[in-house]
């Protein structure tokens, strides 16, 4: 499968502050790639380097086969970007801003522009200074989506949007994907990433600490099991891979590492299973696990799934 974005060992510091510390990132052509991480992890810095707005201190970056610093203009003809904080010209209307940005990108499809303005319920006649944060984001989203580029780089594009607009946005991303476009989506909205992303990369302190398909990442973590058995199953607590074992009123509840699931369930069945609920980890649990880990352990246990 072709690669749209390939980043290896990316390093960037601002003065003495280290922002990126050997970050690797790969987004395949045609996929929606979720880019997750706590505040200050280096997400926006990475995106700005991918756009050639910032210059990397080290490592290699290839976007659509080009070097974003040197080939910025040629690259920008093939991508669209929505920043996290959209600032518009105070005296320009939203419609004028869309047209200006579209003109810079070489013209936009007028029908598509109208359609998107309708879908996002945007008033294009208001001046930039009178727009709310959500409406400024809509302007940038319409400008970006109207040009139908090969690659969309979106930096928390919907933080100011209401749930209706959020749904519309997700629909637009799915449409882009169905046309074979690549989307790099930095987001804090986990439901959005779960709904859209084919694969995700989790960045923490300037490094990617986990990446892969969401299902595979889940597979690498613990599943929560709740079961009621005929006979007390307290003996399970000592099995390898079982964590946080609790037993109350004939019901056991524990987390189990995925690779030990089979053995544990076999053992459980010997106690006469009455009810059994098994919950895969939510993305939130997954993230909390990666976010909360200390420095030292994050380096030892970087997780990669092809």
């Amino acid at each position: 499968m072709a690669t749209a974005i390939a980043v290896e060992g990316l390093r960037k510091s601002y003065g003495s502050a280290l922002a990126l510390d050997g970050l690797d990132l790969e987004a395949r052509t045609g996929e929606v790639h979720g880019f997750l991480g706590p505040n200050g992890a280096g997400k926006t810095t990475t995106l700005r380097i991918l756009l050639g707005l910032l210059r990397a201190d080290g490592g290699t970056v290839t976007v659509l086969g080009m070097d974003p610093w040197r080939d910025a203009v040629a690259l920008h003809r093939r991508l669209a970007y929505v920043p996290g904080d959209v600032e518009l010209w105070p005296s320009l209307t939203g419609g004028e801003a869309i047209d200006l940005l579209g003109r810079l990108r070489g013209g936009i499809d007028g029908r598509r522009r109208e359609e998107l303005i309708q879908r996002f319920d945007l008033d294009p006649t208001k001046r930039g200074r009178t727009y709310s944060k959500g409406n400024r984001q809509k302007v940038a989203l319409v400008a970006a989506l109207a040009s139908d580029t090969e690659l969309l780089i979106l930096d928390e594009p919907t933080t100011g949007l209401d749930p209706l607009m959020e749904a519309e946005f997700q629909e637009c991303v799915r449409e882009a994907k169905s046309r074979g476009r690549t989307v790099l989506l930095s987001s804090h909205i986990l439901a959005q990433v779960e709904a859209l992303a084919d694969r995700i990369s989790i960045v923490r302190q300037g490094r990617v600490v986990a990446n892969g398909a969401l299902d595979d990442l889940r597979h690498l973590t613990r599943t929560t099991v709740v079961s009621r058995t005929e006979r007390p199953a307290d003996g399970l607590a000592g099995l390898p891979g079982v964590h946080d074992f609790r037993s109350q009123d004939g019901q056991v509840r524990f987390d189990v590492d995925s690779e030990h699931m089979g053995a544990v369930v076999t053992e459980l069945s010997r106690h006469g299973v009455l009810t059994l609920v098994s919950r895969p980890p939510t993305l939130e649990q997954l993230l909390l696990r990666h976010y909360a880990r200390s420095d030292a352990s994050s380096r030892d246990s970087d997780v990669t799934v092809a």
Partner: protein
Amino acid sequence: MNAATTARPRGARASDAFANSGTLFRFALRRERWSILAWAIGLALATAAVPLSYVELYPTSVERGLIAQAVASPAAVAMMGVNHAEGDYHYGAATAHQMLFITGILVAVMSVLMTVRNTRQEESSGRSELVLASPVGRRAPLIVALLTVVVANLAVALALSLSLGSVDATGIDWSGAWLYGAAHLAVGISFAGLAALMAQLYENARGALGASLAAVGLAYLIRAVGDVAGNGLSWLSPLGWAQATKVFVEDLWYPLLPAVVFTAFTVVVADYLNARRDVGAGLWAARPGPAHAGRALQTPIGFAWRLHRGAILGWSAANLVMGAMYGAFLNDIDSMLAGSDILERMFTATTSVDLITTFGAVIAAVMAVIVAAYVVMAGSRPRSEEVAGRAEPVLSTSLSRTGWVISHAVVVAVGSLLVLAAGGLGIGLAGSASVGDWSILPRFAAAVVAYTPAHWVVLGVVIALFGMAPRAMPVAWMVIGFSFVVIYLGDFLQLPAWLRAFSPFEAVSDMPAESFSAPPLLALTAVAVVLLALGLAAFRRRDVPA
């Protein structure tokens, strides 16, 4: 290393570096068109008005000769420059001598404002992130901004040439009129280049603007000192180049050559830095600061002081240097007079005080008006806090609107006192040292500091506008512009007393030439308090942000 990064040498691809400049240029011109028009028309009308009124006021060459004598004093030379006309001080010579220095400064200020607005301000606001993520060459925005400023300067130059050229007055001809416009163009592009360079070094627009405006002040000062000393120092100042053309007298074009070289140099360096740095970055990375607010910062006054501290210290330092440069050549005035009996007789006949104190009084007034720019800028801080959305979290605490504005006003009021005191100290120390008379220090320092209440009136105007018509706040600059005109040209234009009274600086007695007089200062303070109260009352009643 990846193939894409090793195949070609490092650096941006040249062919795309200016991609989409045309679209950006049209956009920038559209945004600036009214501003350009206003500057061009305003400067052209103000300039043409001078020879037109002089034709009325001073119809004969004898009368014009009297003005020529009045502007031959060292103080006038420092202010306006050298009178190049050896014979008739005709209307062309008078206009060039008395207007070029001030319209030159105005054109410089226009270029600086417009350049910073279109470069660093776009960048620090985050708008250029959207633009540069489009297929726009990395070097395009800076070059487009500079082209826009060049267009503005061309418009101003053309308007000046056309308006002056069509005036029918002795000594004004078309060849001079064209050079007059070109001299302004030279000043304008020089400071556009300088501001473009500052915009690369400073991470925020305020810093770039402050440094560039300080450079304009320095250029004026160098020209003033150079002209009085007659030592060629003026050739280091773009304003000096414009005046060295001796327009309407000798019409020399070659003094504009250094402006072309200087502009080319600054633009090349700015473009070099711009093409290689990160978007949003300056020359210096931001340093980390304390994690906790100190006790002082947690009071409204302490908070306001923190926001204004840098500007107060910067202006004070700059004003100290400016004062010292003026003070350092007080002695030259003495020796200039010694060699010129006529001049000495003229001045001792008209006034009872020595020439040094006359000079001191003019310098004090000039310095006070220049420093009033600090008062307008710092006094507008509540407005910029409001527009940027930083006022909302502050005003949603238990701090009242009144308390918030007053804390800013108090800090700026004290700030203007400190900045003036620094200037007075500079003149006093350097003047005393150069003349060898330490009585100069207290007298000259007091002369400058006495203008503080006039500054408070300017501050009152700013706050009143902030409350009543925040979008009209730039009007406060007109108070400074008008005061300049009154100080420089009030006598020559024979402005009536009631009109001069609109300049708060006129009420202050001309120390050290005149004696100290308290009532006008108290009256000015009262006016300032009334204006402040008006502004506060209006601010309590209006929307935030409005």
